[in-house]
């Protein structure tokens, strides 16, 4: 009897596996045994860990998604550029300043490219950088807390898309203009695009110990669109490569106007040469107001306003920039693990061009230039090109690499991944993506030491892949096994926001250094309380500061009287817990703000301006313990000018 039940269970389980993996069996649906094989490869049994962390940009959500691979399980969303009420991010007094910009408080952005910090060209698991596209910014996330700790605004830039690609030792993260703008900004006619619009390539220095960013210099470029970047490595270390399109300088209906030239360029920037020119004083210090926001040693975000940048003009710093002609409106630019090959995703081209760094250097030596644009020499195409990969499909975009000399290129229009041999420039395998793949990601796939194993497609269209959810459908990732000669599709999984680029790294690099609690003893927040005895309520004019503690399962104080209508009440909540996975939340009725989630040992402040008389409940929003429902209190609000004295309950009463 028992064995029959077990057999039934096995059959049901098998059916479920086929059901899940084979869902929406279209032209490329998998046969049963293949599906079971794939399911086995992505099954991470309950209570065990994934092998890789997978970081996806949230696109228009402004967040960073964190998944486990190979299971595709969503682990966390890290808020970066967008207010995130769930965590009180951008609402609490300690985090609001992270979202300051020269345009004021900015509650949203479009985050495209997560990049893991590197040591010697290999991801090291210290930080993750990500760009804000709309209001140009670069953020840094600490991978021991999964918190955004720094955001720097990028001046003189329109659409920071080619960012934050970084150099092999994390010396610099780069930023660039996707939409050329008058530089500096000015009230000019759009028709003056060719003469008045410009672009900047920005190099942001990263402090090797603290990770702190600072704009080092900007390189002034012709007014094209700068799309994607990658820094050189190994022999090409010291260079950074940026794709350009719209070298036509169209300013309306770009889809046609920017697609006329057979070739646009890759801009090769010698940043070590730039450092020389800056040292020689050839940079021009230019006024620019931009925000530099970071978490200080009190765990409070603060803004430092910057007032100038150093701008380098290639016309006055020879050998700084070269243009490599590249067909046609190239998108991605990717440097292989050896640092020798530079692959461009010529998104409108019929062949996939591969440049050679060695050839580029020889061409520079021999001055094999076809012309000069704004002081920038254009190298002759055949003098820099190693090969054109034939039959790459329609719309190649991005390329990542494995450790065995293969490249994997996402192809948008024909919706597929091609695998090709780097030396021979030959396509050796291709597999469909469902549908319209943008970026793709291989663990370590843009580093000097790819871990390989998987390729992950980040798809724009999902149509029939999942249960439909009205007009807006989920975006998705697809996991492919790349260990064999033939790529194999293993798993579809939905993603939050719209992932553009994504990076993965072995979990072992960061799993064991996760912060479990913040040390209460080291809490330097000026409004922190170290014990319930320090809790109190202080009035300063119309400001009321509540020094509140939370610990399982009560707030102290939890009765507050003497608040008046129109007061600004600051609840400074310190979580006294020193136990892992015991956050406490705080919310009060009628607060036109968000909740706050307070991690153990941390202090978070949220402001409440009561606009009416009454008694208002507050409570813990994080189900913290068996007596979580009891973790609540009341605040009494009296009329303005009331004689009700400020009072609150104290421990032991």
């Amino acid at each position, binding site marked *: 009897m028992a064995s029959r039940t077990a057999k039934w269970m096995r059959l049901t389980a098998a059916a479920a596996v086929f059901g899940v993996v084979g869902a929406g069996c279209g032209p490329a649906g998998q046969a049963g045994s293949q599906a079971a094989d794939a399911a086995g490869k992505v099954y991470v049994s309950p209570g065990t860990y994934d092998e890789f962390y997978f970081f996806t940009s949230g696109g228009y959500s402004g967040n960073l998604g964190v998944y486990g691979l190979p299971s595709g399980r969503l682990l966390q969303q890290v808020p970066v550029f967008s207010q995130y009420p769930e965590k009180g991010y951008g609402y609490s007094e300690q985090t609001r300043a992270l979202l300051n910009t020269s345009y004021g408080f900015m509650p949203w952005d479009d985050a495209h490219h997560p990049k893991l910090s590197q040591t010697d060209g290999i991801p090291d698991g210290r930080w993750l950088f990500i760009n804000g596209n709309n209001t140009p910014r670069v953020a840094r996330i600490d991978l021991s807390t999964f918190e955004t700790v720094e955001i720097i605004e990028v001046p003189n830039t329109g659409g920071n898309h080619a960012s934050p690609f970084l150099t092999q030792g994390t010396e610099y993260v780069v930023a660039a203009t996707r939409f050329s703008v008058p530089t500096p900004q000015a009230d000019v006619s759009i028709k003056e695009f060719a003469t008045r619009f410009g672009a900047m390539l920005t190099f942001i220095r990263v402090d090797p110990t603290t990770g702190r960013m600072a704009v080092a210099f900007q390189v002034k470029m012709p007014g094209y669109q700068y799309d994607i970047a990658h820094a050189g490595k190994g022999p090409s270390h010291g260079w950074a490569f940026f794709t350009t399109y719209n070298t036509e300088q169209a300013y309306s209906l770009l889809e046609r106007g920017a697609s006329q030239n057979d070739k646009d360029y890759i801009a090769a920037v010698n940043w070590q040469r730039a450092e020389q020119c800056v040292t020689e004083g050839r940079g021009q210090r230019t006024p620019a107001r931009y925000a530099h926001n970071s978490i200080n040693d009190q765990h409070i975000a603060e803004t430092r306003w910057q007032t100038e940048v150093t701008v380098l003009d290639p016309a006055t710093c020879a050998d700084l920039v070269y243009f490599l002609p590249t067909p046609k409106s190239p998108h991605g630019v990717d440097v292989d693990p050896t640092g020798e090959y530079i692959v461009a995703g010529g998104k409108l081209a019929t062949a996939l061009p591969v440049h050679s760094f060695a050839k580029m250097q020889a061409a520079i030596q021999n001055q094999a230039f076809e012309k000069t644009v704004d002081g920038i020499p254009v190298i002759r195409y055949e003098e820099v090109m190693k090969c054109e990969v034939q039959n790459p499909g329609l719309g190649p975009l991005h390329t990542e690499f494995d450790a065995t000399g293969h490249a994997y290129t996402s192809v948008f229009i024909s919706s597929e991944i091609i695998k090709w041999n780097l030396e021979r420039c030959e396509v050796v395998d291709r597999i469909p993506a469902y549908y319209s793949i943008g970026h793709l990601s291989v663990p370590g796939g843009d580093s000097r030491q790819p871990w390989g194993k998987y390729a992950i497609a980040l798809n724009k269209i999902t149509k029939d892949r999942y249960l439909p959810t009205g007009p807006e459908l989920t975006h998705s990732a697809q996991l492919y096994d790349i260990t064999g000669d033939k790529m194999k599709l293993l798993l579809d999984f939905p993603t939050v926001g719209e992932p553009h680029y994504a990076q993965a790294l072995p979990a072992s690099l960061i799993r064991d250094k996760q912060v479990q609690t913040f040390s209460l003893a080291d809490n330097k927040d000026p409004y922190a309380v170290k014990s319930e005895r320090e809790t109190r309520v202080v009035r300063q004019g119309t400001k009321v500061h509540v020094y509140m503690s939370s*610990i399982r399962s009560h707030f102290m104080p939890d009765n507050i009287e003497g608040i008046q209508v129109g007061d600004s009440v600051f609840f400074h909540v310190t979580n006294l*817990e*020193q136990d892992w996975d015991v956050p406490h939340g705080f919310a009060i009725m009628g607060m036109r703000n968000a909740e706050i989630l307070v991690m153990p040992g941390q202090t978070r402040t949220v402001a409440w301006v009561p606009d009416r008389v009454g008694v208002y409940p507050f409570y813990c929003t994080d189900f913290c313990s068996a007596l979580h429902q009891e973790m609540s209190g009341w605040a009494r609000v009296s009329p303005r000018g009331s004689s009700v004295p400020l009072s609150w309950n104290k421990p032991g009463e």
Partner: protein
Amino acid sequence: MMTRTTRWAVGLGALLLGALYLLPLWHIALKAPQYPEGIGMYIWVDQITGQKPHDLQNINGLNHYIGMKPIDPDAIPELRFMPVALGALIAIGLGAALWGRRRGLYLWTAAFTAGALAGLADFYRWGYDYGHSLDPTAAIKIPGMSYQPPLLGSKQILNFIATSLPAAGGWIAFLVLALAIALTMREWRLGRSPAPA
């Protein structure tokens, strides 16, 4: 007089007890669904510590639900008395080894045995007190339930499995005590048999 071997063994055994100043005597480990990684505390000759940095605070935090008094090392006078008693025991042992008379060994063994029994009894008394003297206003009250940790071994207490075992220092103490008793028996026998001609 004790044999030369016994005198050396007594002296070394007494010195070995010095390790109790550096190693915990006892370990109480707690395991619950909410604490798969475990939580627990060590009892030392002069302090009580968590097995992880904040475990003692967290154990006290959990105990407040059942109205147990917080475990406050400063409020336990034995933790000030025990280091002195241990010092005395080491001194008696060393004195006995130097003195060489069997009576010294008997005194050491007797003091050691009495001390160990008193310590265990005291440990039991504290455990009983923590487990039974509960705040009547506690959130969780289960009629007839007490929360006394076991002296030795494992016991289910609500969602926790509490396991109480000697730690390194405790094992050393028992080892040296066993040695003292064995030496005492040996010397006792030797003392009663006629001296060799």
